[in-house]
């Protein structure tokens, strides 16, 4: 009796499910909304909520509303894995935006690939798209490009003896790897190479070790608040060498946290941070000004490049669906892979089957901190 009822229900469900799916496009998002990487996930989640509300108010994509399901992974790769399975198997989402961190993304890269689910990561590590996985894309600029940008600046300043400090996270490790790999090609010698805890409360001993190595410059590669402690401690113990940071420094709260020590820090970043001073004819000007204005007026909080990564991920997904003119996963995947000239917050994207990031070194601008504000580094 029960089994027959169940069978009947299954058949009914099989008819209903596609009908329901046709009305909305389910988009999952795995973001570190709380926890140690909440400065990434929180603005990303807010950005997605804003964009989805916006696009649904305008009638959705191709007449279909977007249904957004945000899962808070708290930056834990284990949670990211279980949420990815839940979104794919139970919610049967069309695509997943996120995760926020590189470690989490690497943990679910294969899950997305095997289940043929489009994954648009908001994390930076190059390993996410190299080697290319068919269904995995990412929107932040590549860390290798950030390293190249820093090394070019060092060459210009004739700095070759550097000390490297990186945090013990996916982002820190990936950056450290790129620095070590690319240094010889730019004539950079790494004289100190230390890894610090992402939740460190003081790093005086670590910077002392770098000071002892007698370096001409410091590269501090992290995305967590501890990176501000490095800068403070370095200046406190009297290191005067220039400090280069990663694009993970692009959050004004780190500048506030490091206070006077942040002055003169040099780092590559997307142009969102300097949207208001970009020349009018810059291709990204309009997108950046609109996004920062919308975000800041809605949430009364300063926009960061991180929220921008979610903006770009969503934009690319929507463009992909529009270009494919269908909600067939394979068609949309192919469409995304061939998207060209998409102006986002992180840069102008040119995807190809061999490049699932679509950005190059020009997506970065060298910035510095002057009077507590981000400004373009004078060339």
């Amino acid at each position, binding site marked *: 009796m029960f089994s027959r009822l169940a069978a009947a229900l299954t058949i009914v469900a099989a008819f209903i499910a596609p009908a329901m799916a046709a009305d909305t496009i389910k988009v999952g998002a795995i973001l570190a909304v*709380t926890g140690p990487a909440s400065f990434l996930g929180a603005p990303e989640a807010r950005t997605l909520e804003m964009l989805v509300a916006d696009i649904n108010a305008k009638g959705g994509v191709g007449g279909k509303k977007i249904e957004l399901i945000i899962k808070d992974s708290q930056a834990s790769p284990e949670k990211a894995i279980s949420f990815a399975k839940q979104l794919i198997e139970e919610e049967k989402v069309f695509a997943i935006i996120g995760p926020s961190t590189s470690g989490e993304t690497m943990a679910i890269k294969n899950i997305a690939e095997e289940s043929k689910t489009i994954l648009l990561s908001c994390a930076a590590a190059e390993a996410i798209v190299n080697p290319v996985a068919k269904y995995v894309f990412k929107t932040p600029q590549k860390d290798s490009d950030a390293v190249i940008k820093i090394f070019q600046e060092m060459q210009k300043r004739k700095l070759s003896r550097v000390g490297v400090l990186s945090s013990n996270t996916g982002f820190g490790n990936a950056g450290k790897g790129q620095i070590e790999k690319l240094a010889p090609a730019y004539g950079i010698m790494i004289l100190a190479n*230390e890894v610090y805890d992402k939740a460190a409360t003081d790093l005086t001993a670590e910077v002392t070790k770098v000071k002892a190595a007698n370096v001409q410059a410091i590269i501090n590669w992290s995305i967590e608040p501890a990176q501000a402690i490095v800068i403070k401690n370095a200046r406190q113990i009297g290191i005067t060498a220039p400090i280069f940071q990663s694009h993970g420094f692009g959050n004004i709260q780190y500048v506030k946290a*490091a206070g006077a020590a942040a002055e003169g820090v040099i780092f590559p970043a997307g142009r969102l941070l300097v949207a208001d001073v970009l020349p009018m004819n810059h291709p990204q000007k309009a997108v950046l000004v609109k996004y920062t204005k919308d975000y800041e007026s809605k949430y009364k909080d300063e926009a960061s490049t991180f929220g921008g990564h979610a903006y770009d991920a969503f934009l690319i997904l929507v463009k992909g669906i529009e270009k494919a003119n269908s909600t067939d996963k394979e068609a949309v995947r192919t469409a995304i892979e061939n998207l060209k000239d998409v102006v986002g917050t992180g840069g102008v994207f040119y995807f190809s089957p061999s490049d699932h990031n679509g950005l190059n070194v020009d997506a970065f601008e060298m910035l510095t901190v002057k009077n507590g504000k981000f400004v373009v580094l004078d060339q």
Partner: protein
Amino acid sequence: MLELFFQYLVAGLTYGTIYAIVGIGFNIIYNTTGIINFAQGEFVMLGGMTAVTLYAFLPLPLAILGAVLITMAVGGLIEMVFIRWLVKPSVLRMIIITIGISILVREAALMLWGEGIRSLPYFTGNEISSLSFGGVRVSPQVLWSLGVCAIVVVLLNLFFKFTMLGREMRACAANRDAATLCGIPTRNMVTLSFVLSAGIGALAGCVVSPITQTQYAIGSGLAIKGFTVAILGGLGNSMAAVAAGFILGILESFSIWVMPTAYKDAISISLLLAMLFLRPSGLFGNREAFKLKDF
């Protein structure tokens, strides 16, 4: 070389001060209840966060005072709501309750303040100022923390040894039934110990805030190190916690000199484990007295 040695020593002192000032807080509740309050780190966080909020419209000393008072009230309230009405709770049960409280406070702080990092301004100078002693540099904030730590320890020792109230609190930990029979209001003593340790935690949170930065989740990280030094020194003894804090801090700092920094935390955790295995009464604790405790 010598300059380098002293610079590492300063780094060790900085770490040690942070650990010690957090570690002290563990001892007070332990002294009256015999339990480890795992929400101690959250008191430190609450103190820092509240002070930053108050600093927006109050001068720094008043903001810190306000933060300490508010956190004390929160500490008292927590005890009254979660602990006071328990009839003869086991140590294990109370520890689990404090872990629950720590999660609760952390989540509440996330709701209240969001995920951003904040910090109080440096009490003297700013983020880059430091005092130089023959090439060895110390941030003035480290000296502030050291000073506050010293004053707190001295006052606590005087309080527990020489005041009636302090002795009554210690009597509670030694044997609560006997203390009750002697006419000591044991429940009030437990509440008082939560109030006091919340206050000290909050003060610690304010002084170290310029160094460590403050965020809703910072409590547990600080608590682990504070807990380590409280155990290392021997539970219940503030002076020992401070000494253990400096030992651990200096060990960690010099380990960085000779090893990759990634091993720093491995060292402190190994030390904690070794201590728990070999000498659970702590470096300065009394072995005989420790055996008499019932866990």
